[in-house]
């Protein structure tokens, strides 16, 4: 790995909900003791199903929400614990592309106004040329500047979302399911655009997705999460999964090839409620390889040659 740009240590987020006159408040741990390092220029994928904590993790890293515990360092600067003014300065170095290009653009702003906003927020001058340059970088015509979001397709809107994220030349960009609400044809365009921008601007990505096939195509390293915790880190896209959950995820995604058709052995059961986690490994209840130990203790994440897995009985 190259020099580490992002270092996350023991990151935990607990949410409290409920709590009324008669109800006791309940706590749920959305992200549990996550350690993560992203090297400069690297694309790290975070994959898991809904409720696994991947979006919460992304928001924690950018400090859009406050962590309960843990440390976040970006390029040597500690992000956790710094004050709002200092955080605002650091924010220029990081950006986020959101999942839904329909709700993440202000419908009453023209595209030019949307793209000028990051500059305004940071009190920087912005020129017509800068806007055209940003549009060009995401392969949109300069004439798009005068349009409103409702005049654009989903793919074009997501290009605007990307241009806005890159406005202040960040080093680190979190991509939170940037293609999940787009057609596959458009998804492929956006992925190729992101690859080109990474090259052109020397970006580092954290790519959040539920699509393991896509993550394996696009990412250098892959972090698999289940119910708030990291269960496996694959050192490269071709690595063979050792955690039964990663295996199940892989078996559940269908290749576009009828010859690869197979008997589906779907996972039984569903993700348990995060309010009421079983003791031991959170996956044990659905796991065909679970042994006695899995139901009593949480398996630690142990690493060997860059491949880390949290399982007592790995494949």
């Amino acid at each position, binding site marked *: 790995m190259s020099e580490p740009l992002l270092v996350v240590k023991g990151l935990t987020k607990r949410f409290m909900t409920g709590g009324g006159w008669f109800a006791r408040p309940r706590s749920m741990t959305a992200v549990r003791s996550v350690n993560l390092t992203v090297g400069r220029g690297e694309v790290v994928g975070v994959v898991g*199903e*809904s409720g696994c904590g991947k979006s919460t993790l992304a928001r924690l890293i950018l400090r859009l929400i406050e962590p309960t515990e843990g440390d976040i360092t970006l390029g040597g600067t500690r992000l956790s614990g710094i004050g709002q003014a200092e955080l605002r300065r650091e924010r220029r170095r990081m950006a986020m592309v959101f999942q839904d290009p329909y709700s993440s653009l202000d419908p009453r702003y023209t595209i030019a106004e949307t793209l000028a906003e990051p500059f305004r927020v940071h009190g920087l001058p912005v020129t017509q040329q800068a806007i055209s340059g940003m549009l060009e970088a995401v392969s949109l015509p300069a004439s798009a500047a005068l349009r409103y979001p409702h005049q654009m*397709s989903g*793919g074009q809107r997501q290009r605007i979302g990307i241009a806005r994220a890159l406005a202040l030349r960040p080093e680190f960009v979190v991509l939170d399911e940037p293609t999940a609400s787009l*057609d*596959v*044809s*458009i*998804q*492929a*365009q*956006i*992925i*190729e655009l992101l*690859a080109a921008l990474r090259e052109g601007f020397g970006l580092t990505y954290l790519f959040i997705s*539920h*699509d*393991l*096939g*896509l993550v*394996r*195509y*696009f990412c250098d390293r892959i972090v698999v999460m289940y119910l708030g915790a990291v269960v496996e880190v694959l050192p490269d896209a*071709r690595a063979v999964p050792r955690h039964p959950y990663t295996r*199940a*995820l892989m*078996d*559940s*995604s*269908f*290749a*576009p*090839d*009828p*010859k*690869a*058709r*197979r008997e*589906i052995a*779907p*996972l039984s059961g*569903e*993700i348990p409620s995060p309010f009421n986690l079983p003791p031991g490994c959170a996956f044990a209840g659905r796991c065909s390889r679970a042994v006695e130990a899995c139901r009593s203790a949480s398996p630690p994440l142990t690493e060997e040659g860059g491949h880390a897995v949290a399982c007592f009985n790995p494949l």
Partner: protein
Amino acid sequence: MSPLLSIERLSVAIGGVTLLDDISLSLDRGQILGLVGESGSGKSLTALTVTGLLPLIGGRIASGRILFDGTDLASLGPAGLRKLRGGRIGFVMQNPMTALDPVQRIGEQIDVVSRLHLGLSGEAARARTLDLMGQLRIPEAAAVAEAYPHQLSGGMKQRIVIAMALAGEPDLIVADEPTTALDVTVQAQIIQILTGLVRERGLALLLITHDMGVVAQACDRVAVLYAGRVAEERAVDPLFERPAHPYAAALIGCIPREGMAEGSLKGIAGSVPPATQFPPGCRFHPRCPHAVDICRTERPLLRETPDGGLVACHLAERIAG
């Protein structure tokens, strides 16, 4: 024997705009026909037409026939359609969160289908409901039947919607993106349930999806729609092995595969135009890398492929090579 569902030269319009243009498809019992294409290709509109829900969105059948077991659906009135829909034609909608009534217990929502369509008593209907829930491997069916939709997960709700579709003893199930809103592990469960129903009971399934992976895994035949027309209709193996229409090839090329080299994922430039701006000639030509002059002026007609499929492309032979 004639196929269970036969759509013949169907055109559908809303207002003055023709959205489905001369579509022909057929589906036998025990068969799964996939309907794929990008948003705006007419997949969901086809589903609404087959289930007789077209008037709901102000559409009408402009020409053509939909023969279901010999009866032309276009000739049936609202009452006739209502009898078929939910009865011999089951419908599974994309979003299980909105397909269920939030203030009615799960069991009652399934019961009502067999009471209406099979004329069962309340007690017999409930017995049938519990039996269906068991077949769909819903744990603790009796307890779930007393629950409200918000108490269930997305995957469980989709099973309930499938149970509702099955309750009227259908011969045909139309499933419109039944797994799009679900997680991949749950998607695998639902696809397994649906394919199992077809194989074990000889149901016919019209499976609408944008996911070529699901098509490759589940379907027998596939119809690729583009801008309201059929671009290619073939058995699943030859379609994936040697797609004859550039649009079908492009759709397949959009999905990352195992071991694909970086930079080899190809999108399709542009997007499906709105129905008011469909171009002349082949509607795909502005996005097609192979387009030549004839594609811009002349509409390609559906022609037979050697393997018994259909393709609408002037250059199909050259492309399939």
